[in-house]
């Protein structure tokens, strides 16, 4: 094992280790797959666990889901690291296609955003009907509000809603307006711990297990509609993209079978997503 052994160690010891590493990669490549960049809201709700196995059974194509915020998902796709996007910020999706990164964009499903907060409701938004008014009341009461602060679809929508309410919460950043810079689940955890308000999509809320004192306080304003779109990453821009398999996925999710799979998905008897047919 010493000196003469040094060289044989290299050949004897290194070879199996390299083989081991290589053996991991072929194992993954046995079956065709696509990489789907999506959002934590769809993953955390459990939708993918319900829908994707049906797709794989129907087509033989596996789906690898990388769940990040909408902003991060779009950045991944722009770098060519995903084949298909399933996110929820229409403006960003259209801009992505317009810039040549995506070859098509289709609406897939929607659910809605809701405002949740402590049961005591210090800003008294429970009976308010429109979302501008509810947000204004939170701002004037200086009640704690947790923002995602991560350029996700939810965050972008939240900022649009603040703008509609003619309020600039950024001036109170660090005071009553607190940006977590993390995912929906992490932000809900913080809201539960601090007894603050936050904007969340209904899917994440229903799938969230650590609600503590948090309750649903505001819903139903048409501006809270949360639409998910599917975008096929452009082969022209990223030649290695699995465009064919990606197209199969897009076609399937928009088919009757895909739409039904989305509509069937429930948590505790509540439907989470509504397919856009």
């Amino acid at each position: 094992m010493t000196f003469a052994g040094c060289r044989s160690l290299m050949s004897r010891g290194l070879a199996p280790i390299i083989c081991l590493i290589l053996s991991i990669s072929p194992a993954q490549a046995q079956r065709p797959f696509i990489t789907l960049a999506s959002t934590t809201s769809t993953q955390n709700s459990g939708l993918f666990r319900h829908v994707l196995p049906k797709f794989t059974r129907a087509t033989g194509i596996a789906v690898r889901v990388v769940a990040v915020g909408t902003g991060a998902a779009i950045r991944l796709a722009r770098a060519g690291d995903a084949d298909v996007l399933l996110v929820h910020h229409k403006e960003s999706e259209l801009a992505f296609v317009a810039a040549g990164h995506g070859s098509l964009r289709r609406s897939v499903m929607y659910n809605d955003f809701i405002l949740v907060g402590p049961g005591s409701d210090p800003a008294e938004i429970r009976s308010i009907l429109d979302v501008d008014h509810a947000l204004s009341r939170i701002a004037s009461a200086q009640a704690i509000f947790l923002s995602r602060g991560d350029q996700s679809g939810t965050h972008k929508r939240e900022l649009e809603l603040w703008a509609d309410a003619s309020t600039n919460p950024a001036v109170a950043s660090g005071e009553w307006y607190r940006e977590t810079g993390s995912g929906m689940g992490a932000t809900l955890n913080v809201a539960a711990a601090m007894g603050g308000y936050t904007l969340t999509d209904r899917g994440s809320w229903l799938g969230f297990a650590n609600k503590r004192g948090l309750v649903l306080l505001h819903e139903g304003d048409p501006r809270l509609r949360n639409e998910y779109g599917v975008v096929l990453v452009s082969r022209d821009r990223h030649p290695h993209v699995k465009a064919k398999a990606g197209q199969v996925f897009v076609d399937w999710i928009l088919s009757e079978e895909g739409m039904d799979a989305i509509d069937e998905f429930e948590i505790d008897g509540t439907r989470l997503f509504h397919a856009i047919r």
Partner: protein
Amino acid sequence: MDAFAAAFAAAGDLILSADAGLVEIIALSLEVSLIAVGLSALIGMPLGGLIALATFPGRRAIIVVFNALMGLPPVVVGLVVYLLLSRSGPFGVLDLLFTPTAMIVAQVILVLPIIVSLTRQILEFLWIDYRETLRSFGATRIQCLATLLWDGRFMLVTALLAGFGRAIAEVGAVMIVGGNIDHLTRVMTTAIALEASKGELALALGLGLILLAISLVLNVLAQSLRSLGETWSLA
């Protein structure tokens, strides 16, 4: 206190039910981290030994750099490896992003400085003892290096354990380069992060307890190997 009781219960349930998903996650965690530590040892131990033996200008600077690299934030390593392996990056053609191989690469970068620094420190100490004798034997530099590595093998277990501890516990790097893809790149730490984000705190904590238990068993095994070897050789 209820939360902890619930965590223990969740951990117990997971283990007793021999959950297939859990087994898969544990196996991948161990596979990725053990290979990363193995590769780091293969590169880092000879490198650490060389630094211990050699005298050259800039040696102190290299030692300081490796010591500093031990504190590399995993997230930063994850980002760097992501940029390298991304389709838009220099190694994009290898198509390694979001694979266990990418996770191994990131963990090697995290573990290597620990192995190099600790190996250097341990072998430097041994070299003080051996230097005159080995030089009197007329051993070449490579022979000296091989001798130090072999004779220091039981002490070097510590370096391996430290490296393994870093690899198995980090979440920042594997989350970014692995993508936490179910059945492919989901490991213990990313699963814990996911469960925590779903608010399943008891389950997350339960997984953490299992991770801790695995780490403990490996450490006990390695330590007893080490002390067995040392008792014999009175190192």
